[in-house]
């Protein structure tokens, strides 16, 4: 049996959804133009993951195994709709920037993956810890990618200009190819880091 601390930290390091499991790649590439967008996406996914993990683990004995997939989809879609409406009401700029990727949280494989692999077999408490770990791991990865792309692509850090006037922004980082290449190189670096630290 893994301890609660291990359950929490696995999502951030060993089984980081972005860099280790390669899940949820679409929003990772699409919304990391700026750090704040990446962070906003991460928090939205964290909220949906947390709520759906709680509900699914609470209902695990009630949902028949044969129709569990449609049931999970319905639960997840409900929370996604809530996020969509809340962002639209209180953070319209972020809602605009994330665009179609908010409704697409429904098909984010991290959330469905945790429901199928974890929440339906574990207690509510453990599912909460799991969701927090995975969600924070996802948010951190997206924020780091956003910081890198924003810092070198626009010279700012969370929308504050910090690179000075002499810095020439690398425009490619703000384009789709920049997203692919940054993530590819980051993946390589993370692989190198893990090998160096001896974690497999």
């Amino acid at each position, binding site marked *: 049996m893994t301890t609660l601390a291990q359950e929490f930290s696995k999502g951030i390091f060993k089984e980081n959804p972005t860099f280790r499991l390669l899940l949820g790649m679409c929003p990772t590439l699409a919304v990391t133009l700026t750090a704040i967008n990446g962070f906003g996406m991460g928090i939205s996914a964290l909220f949906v993951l947390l709520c759906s993990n709680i509900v699914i683990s609470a209902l695990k004995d009630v949902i028949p195994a044969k129709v569990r997939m449609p049931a999970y989809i*319905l639960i997840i879609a409900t929370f996604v709709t809530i996020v969509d409406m809340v962002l639209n009401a209180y953070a319209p700029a972020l809602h605009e920037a994330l665009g179609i990727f908010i409704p697409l949280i429904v*098909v984010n494989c991290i959330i469905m993956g945790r429901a199928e692999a974890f929440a339906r077999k574990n207690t509510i408490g453990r599912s909460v810890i799991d969701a927090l770990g995975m969600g924070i791991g996802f948010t951190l990865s997206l924020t780091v990618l956003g910081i890198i792309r924003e810092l070198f692509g626009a010279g700012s850090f969370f929308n504050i200009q910090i690179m000075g006037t002499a810095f020439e922004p690398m425009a490619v980082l703000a384009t789709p190819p920049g997203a692919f290449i940054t993530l590819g190189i980051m993946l390589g670096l993370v692989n190198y880091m893990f090998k160096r630290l001896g974690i497999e």
Partner: protein
Amino acid sequence: MDVNLLAIIFVAIFANNIVLSQFLGICPYLGVSDRLETSLGMGIAVIFVMTMSAVVTWVIDTFLLVQFDLVYLRTITFILVIAGLVQLVEMVLKKTNPTLFRALGIYLPLITTNCTILGVALLNVQAGYNIIQTIVYAISTGVGFTLAMVIMAGIRERLDLADVSSYLRGAAVSLVTAGILSLAFMGFKGMMTL
């Protein structure tokens, strides 16, 4: 909304390619695109399901959701319709056309959680296309997806033999390759946008 059909086709396949410039369907793009045959099969299955789901969701959106002011239910309705539709297609194919089922069958379950299908259904109603434009848009987007998959598969079959650093092997080098491909596709943006 009055948009030239040819413009929709060109933009959906090249200028605004669903994978390389809109970042949808990255999971199958990285997961399935290691063999030419499987990417082609996946691509055809996607074109098929994408067109059907775009039409069905368009009808539901136009005649139910908009009519009764229920637009906030879009996400929930669309994903359920798509999941149901994929099941239906799977059952109908199994019964009526076993050959086609054997060719596409293994890809169908994967498609439910493929974000391109839901993405196209949503983008489509957001753009306000009519039914003809919807069909054309869905087919061209599917063709764009297939094109990106097939090009990537061709590259990856060669990449397997290349001497790549062990840290970059697999997904990392595929992503960098996709970046370079995406750079090439960006050139089409200068020709035409919607």
